[in-house]
């Protein structure tokens, strides 16, 4: 009697285990195809400009610091009659003419101007690409993060580059391979880790997006996949992407 119950229990366990195994196997062999998408971003090249309030606040705090600080004893830091002392005094004289008085009749201390640094050539923060609104240029919007979007060849909609996985490759390997096939190989990229940053689940396919940075190079769209391309900020992407598509991808984009 006991033996038959034991056998019955064992049979039930085996049956349920087989069912689970079949479920998992069937799940992996599901009809939905897996695509890998690439969120290629160009990081900001320059630091953000301070807002008027930020600039005013920092100036206010600096003036407080100057007013509340203990006096600067120049004979401790400069040898008497040295050229460094003279250079420092000249800088204070020059600043005294322009600066306002602090409380107590003191003027703020200034550093002598480093002639070598002042003579360095610097590039403009606002480039021609900014003025011309050239969305294909990587010199545009230097303060912002730019994302690559392509105009799909089949339906003409703007999307992030994406394509099916091939063979036994994994997501981050497929991302590099497909990116080079879609936008050319004359670019240096870095895919961040192995984990996808977002996904879109459609009826026929599921696309998992990998984040990548572009370090150098240019985009040469492959006509088979992409008619056109653009480098856009998150706010501009809202105009270009389909609303439903934007809703699903906007969380993985950086605000600034």
């Amino acid at each position, binding site marked *: 009697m006991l033996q038959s119950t034991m056998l019955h229990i064992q049979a039930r366990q085996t049956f349920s285990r087989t069912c689970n195994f079949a479920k998992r196997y069937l*799940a*992996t062999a599901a009809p*939905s195809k*897996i695509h890998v998408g690439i969120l290629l971003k160009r*990081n900001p*090249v*320059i*630091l953000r400009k301070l807002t008027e*309030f*930020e600039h005013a606040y920092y100036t206010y705090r600096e003036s407080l610091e100057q*007013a509340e*600080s*203990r006096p*600067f*004893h*120049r*004979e*401790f830091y400069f040898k008497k009659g040295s050229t460094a002392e*003279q250079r420092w*005094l*000249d800088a*204070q*004289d020059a600043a*005294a003419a322009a600066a306002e008085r602090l*409380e*107590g*009749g*003191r*003027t703020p201390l200034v550093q002598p101007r480093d002639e070598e640094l002042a003579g360095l*050539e*610097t*590039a*403009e*923060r606002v*480039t021609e690409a900014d003025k011309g609104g050239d969305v294909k*240029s990587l*010199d545009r919007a230097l303060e912002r993060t730019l994302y690559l979007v392509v105009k799909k060849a089949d339906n003409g909609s703007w999307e992030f580059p994406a394509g099916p*996985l091939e063979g036994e490759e*994994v*997501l981050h390997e497929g991302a590099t391979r497909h990116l080079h096939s879609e936008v050319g190989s*004359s*670019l*240096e990229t*870095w895919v961040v880790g*192995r*984990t*996808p*940053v*977002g996904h879109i*689940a459609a009826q026929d396919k*599921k696309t*998992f*997006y990998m984040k990548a*940075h572009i370090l*150098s*190079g240019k985009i040469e769209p492959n006509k088979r996949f992409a008619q056109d391309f653009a480098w856009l900020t998150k706010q501009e992407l809202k105009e270009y992407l389909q609303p439903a598509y934007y809703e699903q991808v906007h*969380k*993985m984009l*950086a*605000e600034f």
Partner: protein
Amino acid sequence: MLPTTCLRRAIPIVKTRNPAGLTSGQYLAGTPSSTRYNSSTSNKKVKDVSGADKRYQLIRDILYSREVPTTQPKPIPPASAALFTAPVATDPANPQALKRDAIERAWAILKEREAVAKVQELRGMYESMRSAMEELERTDRRLFEAAKVAADREEVVVFPRRLRVPTDTPPLEGWDYDMKTGTR
């Protein structure tokens, strides 16, 4: 001879105040640097001694300087307890405090908004990543296992050296379209 010099060195050098009330440390605005600043060293009565003594004297002058900042010092306990009970100045008779508190409150509001926005952005990114991994687990176990960042793996995600840090101004040559740095 010897005892007298020792005695002389042992006497602390008294800083003499000049008639203008300036000490050696104060820099008076508007005065051209060519004029001699009244300093205690010039009025010193004691004979010039070795360089080491001068430095000690200088440090002593600085440490025990009579000059103090002319703005209100910050209160020390228990007077600072008032800051916790009334953190914002309300007395209209003290316009400086009102101004200072208004500025600091505005700054705090700005920083709070920035922090909230940053947390929201990061939360959105995290949720997006999490739901992608959950979907991947349901869809394809092989890819899911490969996508996991497990503690038992040896490989560590490292940043490429050429990932540039933002600077005040962009590079002179602009964006490197020809991948020149890669060929160096």
